[in-house]
């Protein structure tokens, strides 16, 4: 019986902590939402850039191969984007619906 208030207090503290995290999370979400469309554009541009670079490797004549090779080293880490975009393929609609802003 004596423990009950303590347990309750503990639960309450836990709940309030979660609530605080929840509100912080919401604020963060709003912040991130503000750059969503910019991020979408950024990734698409990266994809374009990398595709142009890789074009000559896959038979699509874009820039001269040797220009590609020079630049490729500098963007090695970003090639990951190419991979995930490649995996996504034509499955674009859902990503656009979520990131372009607009409430449904």
């Amino acid at each position, binding site marked *: 019986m004596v423990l009950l208030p303590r347990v309750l207090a503990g639960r309450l503290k836990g709940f309030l902590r979660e609530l605080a995290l929840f509100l912080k999370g919401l604020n963060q979400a709003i912040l991130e939402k503000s*750059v969503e469309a910019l991020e979408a554009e950024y990734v698409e541009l990266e994809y374009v850039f990398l595709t142009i670079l890789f074009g000559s490797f896959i038979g699509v004549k874009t820039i001269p191969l040797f220009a590609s090779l020079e630049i490729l080293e500098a963007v090695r880490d970003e090639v990951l984007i190419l991979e995930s975009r490649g995996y996504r393929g034509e499955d674009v609609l859902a990503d656009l619906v979520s990131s372009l802003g607009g409430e449904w």
Partner: protein
Amino acid sequence: MGLTELLSPYTCCPHLVVVIGKGGVGKTTVSLLMGHVLSSVGKTLVVSLDPAKHLAKYVGEEVLNREKVLGENLVIRQLDVEREVSKQASQYSDTLRYLMPSLSVLNLDDVVDVVKFMPGVEEEVFLRVLMDVYCNSNYEFIVIDTPPTGVTLRTLYLPVLYEAWIEKLIKIRERIVSLRYVIAKTLGREGEVRDKALSILLGMKERYTELMSRLRDSSRTSYIVVATPEPLPVYELEESIGFLRRKLGVSPKAIVLNKVLSPEQARSMGVEEQQEFFISKLKSFKTPIVLLGYLGRPTESFNDVKDLEGLVRVLK
């Protein structure tokens, strides 16, 4: 003599003399002749980029990738095209291998050696040579004996193509970098303004812009187009001059017509009319024409070239 005056105005150093022409019209001969003439004015280097590697024949020894002194102020050199191509290609396949490390584990490294056969490696090599050559201030004149016309013109046009592409890529990359910066700033992270890829691109742009301006600067570069008074060589000459004017905006400083027969020789071979026809055709280009008389025998040595000096006639 007049040959040197044809090149003026020229600045130093070095001043490039690019000799263009169909295979077999005597490019190497003319290059050596120009080299000989110019060496009396200043230190001259004759470089042959021609994969046919005729230069060696004129001096009776190998001049691959080494400089041979031919006379006072005259040095010649033959570019080892295959070796350069191979060097360039392995540089590129090394990069590929670096980007795909698992290849060596699977013993698939050779796959990337295919780069050697990529179209455009030769042109790439020539372009690099041209860029390097402009920086070689040891010489006052550098005469370039070019590869066959097609390759040469493609090579000369490459920087123009590169410029367009690089400009586009720079635009895209600049936008990427600015977006990245804005996103980072907004989310409270540190924004990075420097970007390696962009620096590389800007460096490339500068290199090609500089090369283009030098190629177009008639005080830094002279173009000499060589032909013989025959249909195909003249046709190619016309194409080359058209290309130079349209795409590069430059005019050749001289047209050299090689193996011009004397009126008697021409008549006896039945080509007098043809020869006259071509000579007058070339006059329409409003460019100084240099007529090189036929030696009477194939030019096989440097002495033969020196003898040609006496058979030069300059038409203004």
